[in-house]
């Protein structure tokens, strides 16, 4: 059918079944972001720790006498800890405008007038951010495991550290979900992505600063759950079977994460609507 034909015609083609619109949102969002060269540069930068890790894996396999380079659970935990910085930057870069920009452009009424539920819309946006975050956390960590097996030529490392793959997976997803939900909730609160970015950075660092001040005064680390990075570090240590760095109970830290995610979902439920009613 020539596109220069200017008359309107009825459509008799195929229509997709419902429930897949979130994929359209996600794919479109990912495509839009990877078109930015600066962002691709950031992604490359975020893979430098992986390259360093890969070199260490290779050297460890080639020169087993250097015990300093031997791969352990601690190394994988440290690797994911290093990625914290990139998780923060990517969350701010990608996530701040995900809903805020739609609110600024009144796009929510366009989205929600299509056969798309609010849950699907949020899921689509969540997938955009989570995909990039997993790309700098879970994907390189799992690749490091694969490289370890490949370079050593046996599965003995994996057999000796059976917990590692689940630990990497659980921690990465927890880290990503916490960042993604928190950022989406903040993004739904404003029409300005810059304001959202500042808000997220404030929440992230301010919570850690508050914990730092309390620690300086009381000398106790029991209140590490007040800090977003502190909570995540505490849970990370437990997942990787390392001595916890704070004296906070694991249940309290997990509860703190659950509360943050729960509040974020509640905020999203209230703020992502086709009509904004100002009382």
């Amino acid at each position, binding site marked *: 059918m020539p*596109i220069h034909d200017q008359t*309107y*015609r009825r459509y008799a*083609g195929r229509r997709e079944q419902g429930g897949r619109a979130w994929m*359209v949102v996600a794919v479109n969002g990912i495509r839009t972001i990877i078109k930015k060269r600066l962002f691709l540069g950031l992604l490359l930068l975020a893979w430098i720790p992986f390259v360093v890790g890969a070199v260490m894996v290779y050297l460890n396999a080639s020169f087993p006498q250097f015990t300093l380079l031997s791969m352990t659970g601690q190394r994988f935990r440290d690797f994911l800890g290093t990625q914290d910085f990139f998780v923060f930057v990517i969350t701010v870069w990608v996530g701040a405008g995900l809903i805020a920009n739609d609110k600024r*452009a009144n*796009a929510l009424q366009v989205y929600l007038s299509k056969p798309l539920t609010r849950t699907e819309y949020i899921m689509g946006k969540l997938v955009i951010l989570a995909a990039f975050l997993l790309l700098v956390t879970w994907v390189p960590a799992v690749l490091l495991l694969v490289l370890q097996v490949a370079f050593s030529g046996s599965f003995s490392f994996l057999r000796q550290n059976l917990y590692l793959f689940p630990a990497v997976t659980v921690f990465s997803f927890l880290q990503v979900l916490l960042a993604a939900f928190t950022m989406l909730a903040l993004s739904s609160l404003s029409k300005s992505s810059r304001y959202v970015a500042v808000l997220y950075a404030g929440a992230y660092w301010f919570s850690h600063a508050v914990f730092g001040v309390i620690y300086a005064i009381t000398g106790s680390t029991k209140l590490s759950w007040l800090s977003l990075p502190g909570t995540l570090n505490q849970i990370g240590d437990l997942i990787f079977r390392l001595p916890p760095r704070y004296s906070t109970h694991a249940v309290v830290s997990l509860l703190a994460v659950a509360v943050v995610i729960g509040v974020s979902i509640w905020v999203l439920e209230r703020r992502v609507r086709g*009509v904004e009613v100002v009382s």
Partner: protein
Amino acid sequence: MGFETTGRLEAVTRTKRNPFSYLLIKMADPVSSPVVALESVSVAYGKNAALRDVTAAFEGGATGLLGPNGAGKSTLLKSLLGFLVPTSGRMTVLGLDVVHSALEIRSRIGYMPETDGHIPGMNAVSFVAYCGQLAGLPASDAMQRAHEVLYYVGLGEARYRNVETYSTGMKQRIKLAQALVHDPDLLFLDEPTNGMDPKGRDEMLDLIRDLAHEKQINLILSSHLLPDVEFTCDRVVVLDKGAVVAQGPIDALKGSRRQVFELRVKGDRHAFAATLVAAGFECHETDEDVMRVFVEAKEGARALFAMADREKVQVRHLRPSVPTLEDVFAKAIGER
């Protein structure tokens, strides 16, 4: 009134003598069934009622949703889309219940919002194709339809421009394009000519008329501009202060069996207008010093001259006119 049995159309008008009495004009129309039906629907923003016990039926074809600003037109459309949840009542769109089949309804309707709405950072063709995909079209079909629809609405040459650089008129057109891309059975158009220059407005109205009358797409046009509705629609539902005050075919509401005269008199025209109303004539005063008086065809202008003679009022101007939607609107919302 059950929706299933609605084979008739009710035209509700309020008489001047008693604004609280309603005259029901029933017209047989057994073929068409309503594409949208509301039964005792009430919607409130907090404590403020926006729609009050609205019962209305929108037949197929083009129906105008008329009313002054704040009458509840946009609220009604947003309720039909599922954006707002009514405090009471029941709504059906294309025979589907709005509460239980919201997604199916949205896949079959197109919504052109009143305010600007676009996806940031996209050019027109990507935006419209994206909307098509969201509505369930495969990616390749959505892209092809996007090109076609953009040409249809007159944005063919500007389709690769970022939507954010568009003028107000172009933004109106692209809102229509995104509403049309998935070929809906029913269109909701909320103030589609807002902010457009006269030429653009005429073109937009031509498009809407073409969609309704040539392409057989049902549409509901929400507007406070009477000429827009009169040009594009066959039927009208008039809202005022959240309630339906008139509905039915425009021709029937105009009262084609009556004559209308433009009348200017010397003397106290307000008193004369009151006398005419008291005598059973329908009379609307306009912004100028002219009043529009409806007279039964058999009576003609003689009745007006007789009244003027009796009241000792001098007739300075008397000209036959035609009933307009403005008359219907003025009568329905009780303006003088």
